[in-house]
């Protein structure tokens, strides 16, 4: 099993709250995603065994929701906003800098499995542009220097 016992237990608990088993698909996917940072076919099969819903139904639902990543990704998900305010204030330069520093392209993951870089649409922090969301946290008013420091910090596990 890829899913941990803890996750499976949580999924069972969630599933028991719904009158229809199918309703447990999205909460289960969310729990699996929280553990692993991604979902894929093997996970669908495991969930399907736990909540007793056909694998197909889970695969369909997961593929519909683009915010479930379908591939394992880095420990830190770097989401650079590239909407208008950020773009005007140099979001592209930030992405370039990150690409250069991490030696990856947008949408890729570093070999050490630490960083995944993507650009995203507006994160609602226009007044502090340019900005980046790393996992659940915002980092705002970015400059190259600030960005380098941020990366250094993450690499050293801070």
């Amino acid at each position, binding site marked *: 099993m890829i899913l941990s016992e803890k996750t499976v237990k949580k999924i069972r608990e969630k599933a028991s709250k719904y009158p229809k088993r199918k309703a447990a698909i999205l909460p289960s996917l969310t729990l699996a995603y929280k553990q692993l940072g991604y979902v894929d*076919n093997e996970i669908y099969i495991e969930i399907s065994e736990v909540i007793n819903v*056909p*694998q*197909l*139904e889970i*695969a*369909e639902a997961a*593929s*519909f929701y*683009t915010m479930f990543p379908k591939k394992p990704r880095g420990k830190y998900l770097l989401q650079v906003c590239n909407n208008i305010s950020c773009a005007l204030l140099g979001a592209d330069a930030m992405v370039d800098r990150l690409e250069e520093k991490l030696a990856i392209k947008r949408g890729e993951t570093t070999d050490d499995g630490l960083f995944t870089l993507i650009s995203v649409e507006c994160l609602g922090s226009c007044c502090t542009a340019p900005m980046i969301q790393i996992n659940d946290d915002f980092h705002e008013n970015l400059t190259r220097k600030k960005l380098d420091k941020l990366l250094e910090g993450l690499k050293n596990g801070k």
Partner: protein
Amino acid sequence: MAEAVKEKISAVATVTCTIDGQQITVPRGTSVFDAAKRNGIVIPAFCNHDKLKPVGACRMCYVEIEKMPKLQVSCATMATDGMVVSTNSQQVREGRKAVIEFTLINHPLDCPTCDKGGECDLQDLTFDHGYDDSRFGFNKMRFIEEEKRATFDDLKIGPEIVLNRNRCILCYKCVRANKEAFGEYDIGAFERGDLTEINATPGGEVSNPFSGNLVEICPVGALTNSDWRYKIRVWLTKTVPSICNFSGSGTNITFYKEDHKNFLFRVTARCNDDIDDGWLSDITRYGYQIVNSESRLKTPLIKKGGKQVAASWDEALAVIKKHMGEIKDQSGGVCIGGLISPSLDNASLYSFSKLFRTIFKSNNIDFRGDYRYLPSVTDSPFTIAASQPFSISEMETSEVIITFGTDLIREHHNEYLKIRRAVNFFNATVYSVNPYAVKTADIAKSEMVYSPGTDELVINGVCLVAIEKKLVDSSAAAKLKPKISKLSLGEIAKQTGVSREQFVELAEAISSAKKISFIVGEIVARSLDRDKICAALSNMNKLFGIQDKGQLAVLARYANSKGAQKLGISATPYEIVKKELKKIWGEYPDCQPRNTDAMINLMKKEEIKGFITVGANPMRLYPDRRFASEGLEHVDFLVACDMFETETTELADVVLPLCSWAEYDGDYINLEGKVQTGKQAIKPKHESKAAFEIMELIARQFGAKLFENEQNKNGEIEKLLNLDSVLPWPDNFFEIEYEKKSSQDGYPVPLFICDDPHHSGHLTEKSPSLLNFTDSAYVELSKDLAAKIGVADGDPLRVESPVGKIVVPAKISAVLNSDVAIIPRNFSSTQTTSLLMRKKRVDSVKLTRVEE
């Protein structure tokens, strides 16, 4: 529509609306689309399907409804009182044009190379309703997967199905039919928006036993099957109405043929709501390929010096005359026996019976070649249960449906779909009662799995609970109780493995249901103690009054099993049939009647010297191969008629090539007792002849005529079919003895031999398409049992019974949850029936891993 359904609908409230100026009254809950359709107003649509719930995906069925500001999709809008609908206003026409234009944005215009061309909904509706130009000039979106593609952008998603996602217009009909109507989860819609694609489950393929329907209902060329692809254009073919020859329900089909080539190209559904709802099982859809098979027997064969050599019909018949004549003259006709396949038409069955009974003067005939030991009596409880009336469409309106001793997906595909429909559309409650967990129980409210060999105890348990809980008439209860209460309920629960609560649940369901369908299947029919089980069923029927408020029957398994019963093809026909035969022929042999088992037994004792098989293959199907082969090898003179070389024809002294059902007109009686005609589609292939012709030819050799003319023959058959052939249940209750059968030491796993979900009988292995689904035998077992033995899916497994041994790959089942082994009998490469013993209630085997 079925009468019963109509009644049910007429009982609910109605609404009256106006569609295109017509006043239309329909039941509440009817969609505008259906209301219009029922009154002859055709609204164009892609995604709507009569037998599926509406989704409103394609938007093609736009109509204008007064007081509604925008166009509405008629398939998902319910008709209401006073609604005024216009299906052909200016606004509607423009709306449709726009929908077509949108649909065609990404649809490739490859009609000249698309296999659907000529029967494509999109092609037709574009012609009728679309623009002749498009305003969308950009490149069409194209799905392409280099590593997996077959030809162009086609993707093989199943053994038979090829998918072209570019042509798909996302009507979701395939996905909906698969989930709703078939309960299968192997094709789905992934991603979203304009990126949505239909595809097989990741890592899987579309191989369910109904997958062929998905191709048929696809409105465009997105799903095609390798059976029909690129073989011929649809407008070059002619259609012939026929019926399926592989199932008991006689699903209606259409053959597509081409005269010059004398070739069948495909089979599609010919929707008959009373029987099949327009769904076909893959066996029906692809099974026809056996007709075209190159390995058909081409000429008669005669054994000369131990080898079978080709001969002419005259030579073969002369040999038959010589040997059968000798046997008849020297030992008497009683030394001749015959076995016929219950898939043949009425005329063939009747001719066979007449040949034996009037010319050989023998009573040794049977049509049940795959039932172990059958007693030679007329009114055994099993015979009575098998003669009961049954209606497929009645199931739709039944409140409670109980399936007992039947693995529907291996025996009765069509009935299974009807039951699903009853659940989905008419809120029926299903109970599945079987000796092993079955796939089709997913629609059941509860599934009861009893230990194999305790069938009658389960029925007794239900009766006892009902008596105890006072759910039934007390006088009947008092009469029945002493006859079945030798074992206490607790003891029964222990023996059967069914809990008291489950018995209570079932008893309450049966007693409270207003309308009930009780289906008994092949697991009971093939059991050695079928009479005992049916006696228990008789008790139950009387106790609960099941037939007073519904139906209870052992379903006929083959295309004309019911016909064979009605025409008296067994050695022990119904008394009423016997009497009628005597009247028609003026004679009836008074020698001892002998059913299949008795005949084979007498072969060994050399009391049966001549034997004729017609379309039957006892060597493969008789549930004791050693017994059958010892018998058939002892026969002095064996004549085998079949379409192919089989295990039985190999032993024969004379082999005669038989026509398939597509090569002559024939009447068949389905499990409801309904007579249906299968029309001749092509001329007989090679030198083959229909069974009734062969019987007539043999009769002529003996200087007699079976029938003066066609009319004569039909008249005689008609007389028999007009008889009321429902045997009455006895008035009293049966005493049910149960002796515990301890499982044989060293052979712990109960064995069930049945059909693969993609095969039926011994012929379908000649269909290349069906072989693409399953091409060899396997042993299906539960995950736990596999783990116990230490085998993984596909590992070879030695299956040993006290009498035989085979090695087959293991197949781990997703549904089985008890220790049983299931092996299909459809493949000549595995001698499955060699594991069986003819006088055994539950066959059991030992499973061991084959060490490398």
